[in-house]
């Protein structure tokens, strides 16, 4: 960090990577960390300044003490008969599209005792600044000095040689940000035993079977889908972009109109203003795919755009620009998904579909996609089992004693 400062932000009681990496890690579920997380959660849930930021409140709730203890119990059960220790120093490259993602990545690693260097994305947002302010104030407290020394949040130029330095200290890396970022970061050589946990470009889908003779149910379904979509402008990997619709064209049209109405209502006047170009962006995608013979007709293009297509293709997904765009595919049975779930599908949310049918489907060896299957409305709820990885397990060493 001696160069003519490529660093835009740095928070740690350690001043260099090496100083931090040389400190021996804390233990799994240490009392310092539990105390710290408890305090953090309370702050996020109770300070009035966070009220306007649902993602911060959600984070505060997510890391509440009772939840943290459940995770620790889970981990203990899983590793019965072994000693579990942190891997050492974990380097996180966190994504830009979800403001609070860096916290989830970090908390998972902190809880199991690792030292962490969290490279923050370049995008600035109010939510992110507020979170960093909270961390800054907590790091100053004497009771958390061990944590402040062992953890660093840093933001620096993409091109900086700090990337290269950083790689050398990593015992594990959490690489968020999609194919290209993952490839770029992996160019920097690491210790031979460094574990990379990589999050590639993926998209999510939902399967819905709802009786369109029940307006209240249709409404509820649309509410839940919008809940999974609105945050982060549908750009979180787990937000559904594809709707598999078990029903008629008419019912899909009715649903699309409900969804549009709900989405419209949920926008503040400020949000409406910034959405001025959305409809045109969606028109461009829709007409491009229609001209290429990939998409059928557009069921609606207002606050949301629902574009029907016979099946989902990589070309269609490549054009998806988020912000309330849904590719709708009509299917007659759950079975029809057998050929539609490539490995690029991350989360499949479901609604009105029998669980045993889904289980049967997902167990098929030919289906390579879907690492999460949760009911509609829960697409964005982060869990330490994510994207097919058990993060606590991957961020710890298991020492077996016979």
């Amino acid at each position, binding site marked *: 960090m001696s160069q003519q400062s490529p660093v835009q932000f740095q928070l740690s009681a350690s001043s260099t990577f090496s100083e931090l990496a040389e400190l021996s890690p804390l233990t799994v579920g240490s009392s310092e960390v539990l105390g710290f997380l408890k305090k953090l959660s309370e702050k996020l849930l109770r300070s009035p300044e966070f009220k306007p930021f649902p993602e911060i409140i959600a984070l505060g709730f997510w890391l509440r003490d009772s939840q943290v203890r459940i995770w620790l119990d889970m981990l203990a059960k899983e590793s019965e008969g072994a000693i579990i220790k942190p891997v050492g120093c974990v380097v996180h*490259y*966190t*994504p*830009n*599209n*979800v403001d609070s993602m860096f916290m989830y990545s970090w908390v998972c690693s902190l809880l199991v005792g690792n030292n962490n260097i969290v*490279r923050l*994305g*370049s*995008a600035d947002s109010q939510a992110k600044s507020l979170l960093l302010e909270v961390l800054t104030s907590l790091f100053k407290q004497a009771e958390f000095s061990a944590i402040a020394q062992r953890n660093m949040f840093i933001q620096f130029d*993409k*091109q900086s*040689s700090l*990337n290269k330095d950083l790689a050398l200290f990593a015992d594990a890396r959490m*690489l*968020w*940000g*999609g*194919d*290209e*970022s993952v*490839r*770029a*970061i992996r*160019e*920097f050589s690491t210790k031979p035993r460094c574990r990379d946990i990589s999050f590639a*470009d993926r998209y999510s889908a939902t399967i819905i079977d709802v009786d369109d003779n029940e307006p209240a149910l249709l409404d509820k379904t649309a509410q839940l889908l919008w809940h999974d979509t609105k945050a982060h*402008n549908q*750009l*979180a*990997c787990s937000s559904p972009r594809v709707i598999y619709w078990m029903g008629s064209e008419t019912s899909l049209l009715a649903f699309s109109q409900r969804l549009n109405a709900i989405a419209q209502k949920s926008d503040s006047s400020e949000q*409406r203003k*910034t*959405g*001025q*170009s*959305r*409809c*045109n962006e969606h*028109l*461009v995608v829709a*007409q*491009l795919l*229609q*001209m*290429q*013979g990939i998409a059928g*007709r557009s069921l609606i*293009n*207002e*606050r949301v755009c629902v574009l029907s297509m016979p099946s989902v293709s990589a070309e269609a997904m490549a054009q998806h*620009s*988020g*912000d309330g765009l849904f590719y709708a595919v009509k299917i007659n049975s759950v079975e029809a998904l057998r050929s539609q779930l490539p490995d690029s599908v991350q989360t499949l949310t479901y609604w009105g579909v029998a669980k045993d049918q889904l289980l049967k489907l997902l167990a098929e060896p030919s289906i390579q996609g879907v690492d999460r299957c949760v009911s509609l409305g829960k697409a964005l709820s982060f869990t330490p089992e994510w994207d097919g990885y058990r993060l606590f397990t991957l961020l710890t060493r298991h020492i077996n004693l016979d």
Partner: protein
Amino acid sequence: MQDDDSVETDIPMTIEDNYLTKLESLFEVPVYDVSQVEKERLLVEVLATLHQHHVENCESYQRLASTWKTDNIQLSDIPFVAVRLFKLLALKSVPESKVLKCLTSSGTSGQVPAKIFLDAITSRWQSKVLVRILQQFLGKQRLPMLIIDSPGNHQSGSRVNARFAGIQGLAMFGRDHTYALNNDMTVDWEAVEAFCRKYENDNVLVFGFTFMVWHYFIAAIKSANRTVRLPNAHLFHSGGWKKLQSQSVDNHTFKAGVLNLTGIPKVTNFYGMAEQVGTVFMECEHGFLHAPSTADVVFRDCYDFSELNVGQTGLIQVLSALPYSYPGFSILTEDLGTLHGVDDCQCGRKGKYFTVESRLPKVELRGCSDTAAAAS
């Protein structure tokens, strides 16, 4: 219909003939002196024929638009193609062998250029219509012409840069064409001064793209502390205000600056685009842009594309009777404009009159992919 003498008349009319017949009769109508109702009636007929032609001859258009309704419709019922598609796809409705040239335009800087394929029919009509419109402002006499651009090479093979095509289009109205800029975009003082001396007392025509006129000519004259005197000139400029908006230069500032530094008293802005060459919307003495008989505009709400009324601001849909070789007769632009009235502009011109406000703001949504680290 058939009487005994006719033997040949039962050969059915081709779409091409049908289109050209209708276009001819539209062309007979005065450019600015036909009421909106009457103009729409004629224009819709041409556009419906164009739609049919493109459905039959452009596969991409057919996939998009074959279900569009074209019977008993009004102008505002005509659907549109998003302007960006001409950048993303190569759209043409005539066989490759009939393509004379391909017009390319970068539009917004750094983007993929639009590709507009022109055949003999479309390019001939583009010229005819452009001449007809500009004659309303310039008369029929060719005037000495100062071009605020560089003479550099804008053409390679049959690919023509839209900037060059624009200059070429206007050059038809001038003689003794003189380029005011060097290839490095500095002012060619010698050429400009010679031109001003030679035509001190004559009416002259000046043409350039809005941004270039301001940035490379007007601003350069100012910073060089020179004077240019063209008291009998008429400046025509086009190309949009986007780049000038950041410098807070609006139409009024522009005109004042031009008058102040060059003495040019008459300045006419016009709105047009590479995707619809030939149909230009000229500014009148009262500062409003006017639709000619061969083209029209519809203003659409940004949030649902519904048609807007007089006084409202929204996306501009441009409709033109000319695009035959490519499916661009009805395009939704990314420009925001305001409709100010129909048939009642103080200048006396009939039809719709409007202003163009700005480009639709581009909102960059943050993708997850720019986490970090360009490997160096």
